């Protein structure tokens, strides 16, 4: 892993992109890393485009600005491809991970000629199968861990199990579904 990995999340208010960025920060912290997890706050409302960020490093992080040249971009809602320049500044050596069922041609058309790797995953299907509801952030979290390799699958799953136990202490019935969503997402994220 590089010394500093920078990740930008694009989602819509209510989909949990901010929570996912905080969960990723948590997981990376638990594997001994220095982390930052922060959303870009705007006029928040359900459905509005939102951005969140992660920095993950083996050394202390001092920079305090938004991320303009990310190593990775996560798109939690593919309708954003029509309205937001999601690949802005994205490094060629990096990758973009999109929650979509659209085909390669459509994706390439909407990524401004991005030359790096493109990954896709059907987070809606996984979420509905495992949780019975549409919470795309859980599968997307697993997908970015897989693609960015910030930690191994095993480290990630072990850590998330602990996090979910804590987070869902009052509704333990959803832990299994969330873990299942992560496991399937780790397998199903695919290169376009």
């Amino acid at each position, binding site marked *: 892993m590089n010394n500093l990995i920078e990740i930008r999340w694009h989602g819509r208010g209510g989909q949990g992109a901010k929570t996912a960025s905080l969960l990723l920060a948590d997981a990376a*912290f638990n594997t001994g890393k*220095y982390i930052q997890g*922060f959303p870009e706050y705007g006029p928040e409302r359900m459905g509005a485009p939102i951005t969140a960020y992660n920095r993950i490093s083996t050394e202390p992080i*001092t*920079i*305090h*600005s938004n991320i303009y040249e990310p190593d990775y971009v996560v798109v939690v809602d593919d309708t954003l491809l029509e309205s937001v320049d999601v690949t802005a500044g994205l490094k060629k050596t990096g990758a973009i991970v999109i929650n979509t069922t659209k085909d390669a041609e459509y994706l390439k058309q909407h990524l401004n000629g991005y030359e790096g790797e493109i990954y896709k995953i059907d987070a809606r299907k996984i979420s509905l199968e495992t949780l019975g509801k549409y919470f795309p952030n859980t599968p997307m979290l697993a997908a970015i861990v897989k693609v960015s390799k910030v930690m191994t699958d095993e480290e990630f799953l072990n850590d998330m199990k602990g996090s979910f136990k804590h987070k869902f202490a009052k509704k333990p019935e959803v832990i299994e579904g969330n873990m299942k969503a992560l496991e399937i997402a780790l397998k199903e994220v695919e290169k376009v």
Partner: protein
Amino acid sequence: MSIRERLSGNEAAATAMKQINPDVVAAFPITPSTEIPQYFSTFVSNGTVDTEFVAVESEHSAMSACIGAEAAGGRAMTATSANGLSLMWEMIYIASSLRLPIVMSLVNRAVSGPLNIHNDHSDAMGVRDSGWIMLFSENNQEAYDNLLMAHRIAENSKVRLPLMVCQDGFITSHSIENIELEEDETVKKFVGTYKPEHYLLNDKEPIAMGPLDLQAYLFEHKAQQAEAMRNAKKVILEVAEEFEKVTGRKYSFFEEYKMEDAELVIVCMNSTAGTAKFTADKLRNEGIKAGVLKLRVFRPFPAEEIAKALSKAKAIAILDKADGLNAVGGPLFTDVTSAMYVNNVKVPTVNYIYGIGGRDTKSDDIEKVYNDLQEIAKSGNIDNPYRYLGLRRE
């Protein structure tokens, strides 16, 4: 042993308050500091602290309740931002002139108008001459550490002044980052119990606080306040030294980053100092002698020490996250340049107003400042010392 954790700046401030366990917390919610009293109120409900939490109806009342509690002989804390601090204005001066060592967490945000919820330092700069000690924090760690040191400084019998700990709204208040926390017992022992010398609930010494104070005495009382602020300098260093012994983390009036041989120096406060350090490192790799002076203690203003630290630079940029609106420059610029003049330090110095209303400050912006300084150091020419950074010109 320190505890490795990850917390947002607001969580860090609330955690410090939990460990300090003050007698009274009175607060009214305002973005971006709302989470501090919110988290703290859960500590009260859970019985983690035995603080009296006063959910007041305005910030004016929040500061009034703190004044009442502190005058009675208790330890009082609050948190606010921007317009919340504006609404406290009248009571801010009363707190300091009654010599009540109240501690406030100020999560810096632009003061309206027009309405903006994001970070700049216009709120803090509005009260810079109100007689409060003002500490600035680069990140969650410093927000936490400054709060742990706050009461020791404020309550010292040679000081007895209120103190505010500033951090950048959203940029650090809402960013999760690594932090080293201290054990509850360590904090309890370090902060100690508050033993006020004079207080209203002391039935052995009936006193009045805040009565009429006209031509015969007000001047003398103000001079005493000024003296207390001068005394605070020594106390701040003593407390920092003791804090270092306990935690291993070193604090002073300011942090000098790569300043030993620095030719081009940026002076700034709060989170931008981190971005400036990041950029200075990058430029150092290219052979440019860049340095950063990050001011922690803005009030009392360590004029002589700053002037000395800047005396060997070839060009200096002072970054202000609040405009002076005075046709001269920002408050940090006018303070630092006046310190340099009085202490016979003559180095070309320019001012940049930046980050107003949450405008993001990138490492590219900081690099542009260092580039400008390189030109200034070479030519010695400054056309206009009152500049903007990141302002759109179209």
